[in-house]
């Protein structure tokens, strides 16, 4: 049973992250810096179960983008993977979750070149401002999380 506060199902999650990551990977500052990591990251979610792969290693499939996003399971072999509840990720992209604490407590599991992913953390920090904007643009203000 899906226990998510924010996502009805995987399709709902893909729709929201698709819109958001499309903006991030076109962003000349954030996208460019992310592409310098040169890695393939697989995000695995629970509640709902879903999978998103971001390829920052191979040439982007679309012009004007700094990487390629694959929604759902794909055959591309990741360099690093991260698994966490979808709701935790939702709050993370608002800048409201400490990823180090998430890993320490076992909420986030990781594998592969985790140090490469850690290096991405400061790079993606400006995207925390974009996530609520993306939700607003999608008419999903009810999913915007504010600090208590």
């Amino acid at each position, binding site marked *: 049973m899906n226990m998510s506060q924010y996502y009805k199902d995987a399709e709902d999650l893909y729709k929201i992250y698709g819109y958001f990551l499309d903006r991030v990977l076109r962003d000349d500052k954030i996208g460019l810096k992310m592409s310098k990591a040169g890695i393939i990251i697989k995000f695995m979610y629970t509640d709902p179960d879903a999978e998103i792969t971001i390829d920052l290693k191979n040439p982007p499939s679309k012009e004007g983008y700094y990487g390629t996003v694959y929604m759902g399971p794909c055959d591309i072999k990741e360099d690093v993977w991260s698994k966490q509840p979808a709701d935790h990720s939702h709050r993370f992209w608002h800048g409201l979750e*400490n*990823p*180090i*604490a*998430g*890993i*320490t*407590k076992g909420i986030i599991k*990781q594998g592969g070149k*985790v*140090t490469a992913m*850690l*290096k991405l*953390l*400061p790079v993606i*920090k400006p995207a925390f401002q974009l996530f609520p904007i993306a939700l607003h643009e999608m008419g999903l203000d009810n999913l915007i999380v504010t600090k208590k």
Partner: protein
Amino acid sequence: MNGNTGKIALIDLTENTVESLTLPEETYRRFMGGSGLAAKIFWDRADFAADALSPEALFILMNGPLTGIRLSGASRMNATARSPLTGGIAESSCGGYFPPALRFEGYDGLIITGKAAKPSLLLIDKGIVTIEDAGSLWGKGILECTADLRNKYGKKSTSLVIGPAGENMVPFACILNEAHHAFGRGGMGAVMGSKNLKALVVNSETKELSLTDPDRIKTLVKELTPRIKNHLISQVLHDFGTSGNLEGHMYSGDVPVRNWTSNFDEEMGDALTGSTLSDRFLKKTATCAYCAVACKRIVQVDEGPFALDEGPGPEYETVVAFGSLQGSSDLAAVCKAGRMCNDLGMDTISAGATIAWAMEAYEKGHITEKQTGGIPLLWGDMETVINKVLPLMATRSGKLGDLLSMGSARAARASGGNSLEYTAQSKGMEAPMHDPRGGHGHALAYAVSPRGACHVQTAMHFMETGACNYPVIGFEFDLEALTHEKKAETMVLAAAIGSVENSACLCQFADRSLTLPEIVELINAAAGYGYDVGSMMEAGLRIFHLKRCINYRFGFSASDDDLTPRLKEPARDGDTAGIEIQFDEMKNRFYEMMGFDPLKGIALRKKLESLELTEEADSIWPRTI
């Protein structure tokens, strides 16, 4: 006795005598080892009227109960003395190879007093401590001296050495093992120098340990080693060194820039971070004894004004202290400055911070060219720092060397204007390179740590950044870095945990993946203390309170638990800009929770007695009839 050897060497350099001291097992259990046991010995034996650099002053080296068990992060030891920098208790922790070698030679620690008539060294060989002549080594840098000792005493020997700064009693002089692993803080090198003690050498042939439950230790080491090695922090440390997340810290406001006038500079973060160091200068990694993490860097700079042979590379603290703090993003200069400080024997934090303060003072006209002897002190001018300033500081030469070798607080008092206000220190010890404006708990930790501004005497640094989870003691909540909320409550736990780490002599990086019950099990299997989590935490608190009592005996009080205005002013830029630190609220709450007297800054009699510190309580709080 198991785990510990039960034997401590008592060395009087004035009388040229070596005796053996045995303490009751109960003392070991109450004070654990390392920092705690050294504090107890200091309390019992110190002449509190003696100057830090007088012959009467004590210098204590102490292993912990786990030293030598071949577990990653468990090969550290503690040094304790009166600090020539602060006048209070100084303690410092060092890894490397000396601690297990001393344990294998049959000693838990060394208590050194007196002053040798001529430059000397202590040799520990086949279980016997002798005082040897070191006249030919005096004046040598640490790199050359270490190599000489290795040549003389063999490849299996390992040494602790001071450099010219220690010989000249610079109050932030350090001691190095194998020219790489430092007793960095508090001026331990000066204490050795004041005793005419150039080095200590252990020539260890055996690897035997007596443990309470050797099979259990073997099993625990086997079980825990992969977990320690694969922990995220360990992986970052292995791949990129202790400056591995410098760039990330820069974004969270943790990295000081230009003498703490800023805590955000994106370009400096990118230029100085650990992956940049690895890409540009890393030759290989290095490690402390038996550690699978291997966070140490061996670097080489091939060309340019700061070209450097292959050798020990900089830690995070050095990178920031000789990088962003001095307005420089030149990583080659950092490598060179770090190597020079190692050779001269100076703590890179205090040396770097004092120079950064001087650069601001020079800019403001509070230090003039008359005081610098005509040497300009300009932000980012690392050629001047390396070629002129550091050698002058270590040898206390010229007006500038004389001034800066005092450390920032004393130098500011000797200079003009309001320059003391923009030093960044507590109790006279310069703050490490973690800006409290990026994590308000650091402000409290720096202020109340007995040795002065310090991020490793307690566990606050790791607890605030989210790297700790201790549900067994109720610490399973997230801390918001930029508020004072729950920081006093956390600090009580952090004081106990930090004392446990420094007394068990565990590395605060490598032990992050250990649970508290696992630490209890390790200590019990090694030394048979019979701890549970509660009694181990109580021992940690006992040790923290004892160090506070020592400082009280040195004349410190609650008013010394403070930070300079620079460290408390709101940040000027980055994500933390404008946010006030509620320092007084945190400190008052912490005092209340610790049962501290609001003026004396130590616990009241009842609290001390409850922690089995009755004798200590009697000497501070006389019983009334």
